[in-house]
């Protein structure tokens, strides 16, 4: 029991120092630091607003700019976790070639660093909500947040496991993954409203876990009622990807250090 507690404290500390490291490297290497990490996604939203909202006019969601930033922040979080975890093993080769610890902690370290960043940009969302005079649907905060968070953790960690491990075997996976994430972005309701998808295809569209997660997340600001059909698909798809990713990661883990 005492050993278990000591181990839990150690794993907590190991994740903590890895998160601190990620956070420090992310913000300290540039002068503007945190401001950049906030400005870039915001400017992206301005571009989306002009292109999709004013020129192509496909973005007909109410409070479109709020729709954009709520979706894009969430997407940036997911993409940040996945893309950084793809190279987290090679970037930390000095650590894992010469120290014996569980490499999966690096994956979680990236996740928590990005999650912390996501929490830091939420005030921007609140400001946007105030400007649009949108109040959150209080009763939906807890179930929707919980549903979105659990699915997103499973999905992001699962894909990260898979990508990080396979990237050690196939070093050029990164190029392909960029395309995959680009396609995934367009297949998710970041700038198009879900209502654009014809109803008969909507079920399949929601099988993309990011579509369901993003809708759950946005429904906190938008939808007056809870939609229970949104909870199960991302949980199942995310859960399966998590199990697959973890199995592949554990399988290849003994080889990581020597393939560096």
């Amino acid at each position: 029991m005492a050993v278990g507690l000591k181990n839990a404290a150690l794993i907590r500390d190991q994740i903590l120092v890895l998160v601190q490291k990620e956070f420090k490297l992310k913000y300290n290497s540039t002068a503007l630091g945190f401001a950049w990490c906030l400005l870039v996604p915001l400017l992206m939203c301005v571009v989306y607003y002009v292109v999709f909202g004013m020129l192509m006019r496909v973005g007909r969601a109410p409070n479109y700019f709020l729709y954009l930033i709520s979706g894009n922040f969430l997407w940036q979080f997911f993409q940040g976790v996945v893309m950084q975890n793809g190279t987290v093993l090679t970037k930390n080769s000095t650590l894992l070639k010469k120290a014996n610890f569980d490499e999966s902690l690096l994956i979680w370290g990236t996740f928590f660093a990005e999650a912390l960043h996501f929490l830091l940009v939420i005030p921007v969302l609140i400001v946007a909500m105030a400007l649009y005079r949108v109040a959150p649907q209080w009763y939906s905060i807890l179930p929707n947040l919980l549903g979105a968070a659990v699915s997103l953790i499973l999905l992001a960690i699962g894909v990260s496991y898979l990508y990080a491990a396979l990237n050690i075997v196939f070093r050029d996976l990164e190029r392909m993954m960029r395309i995959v994430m680009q396609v995934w972005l367009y297949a998710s309701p970041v700038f198009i409203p879900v209502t654009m998808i014809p109803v008969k295809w909507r079920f399949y569209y929601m099988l993309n876990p990011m579509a369901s997660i993003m809708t759950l997340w946005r429904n906190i600001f938008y939808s007056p009622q809870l939609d229970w059909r949104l909870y199960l698909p991302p949980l199942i798809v995310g859960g399966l990807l998590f199990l697959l990713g973890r199995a592949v990661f554990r399988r290849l883990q003994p080889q990581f250090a020597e393939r560096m």
Partner: protein
Amino acid sequence: MERPIIEISHLTKQFKLSNRRYGLKGVLLHLVDYLHDMRHPRMFTALDDISLSVRRGERIGLTGQNGCGKTTLLSVIGGVYRSYRGRVDVRGRVSMMLALGAGMHPELSGRENIILNGVLQGKTRREMQALMDDIVDFADIGEFIDAPLYQYSSGMKARLGFGVITAIDPEILLVDEVLAVGDAEFKKKCVRRIGGLLERGCTLFLVSHNANDIRRNCDRVIRLDYGRVVADGPVAEVIPEAPVPAASTP
């Protein structure tokens, strides 16, 4: 009799050699070659059927030519390489420094790396904070302690790394060629520091090409050659005093 702290039997470690790096593209374009290479990989045998037994408190010098498997052996004992044939039992907390800057991150400062390295080697943050002053004292690198590691000289990295691994009270200490970059004064400090650990029953593996370093720190020498143990015994037997002068042309 006490069980050996390290017991290795018939350890063989091979690495796949490939002159082609297969990316995803490579695999798809050269599928036939890839499958052939997968089925008939060319192997390099780094460790070849090694059996060893080490008692608690032994001080072992590991020597041999470049590429003979010294670092690979320590990497297996330290748990970094986890796929091998044979049996390896390590019954104690291992602390290791297998290269300069090992277990550290180049962009973090000395202090941050002390915490990072110690925590990854199994200490909690609070324990590392308590050890901080001792490690900073030992490293004795002045204001560089707050500079990022990439600005360090080799000697500074050695000082910092050696300070950490010896401070966290290991039962087994693995040190690879670290003394080689230190100056005389640093070597003396290292010897004293190792001496303190040995008094507490720590077991030492020291990789070195320098016969004097081995004589000063070790009581047993293992010589590897092409991944095999070719000599294993007391220092006086394996590296006799007053070696034959190398340049004795008639």
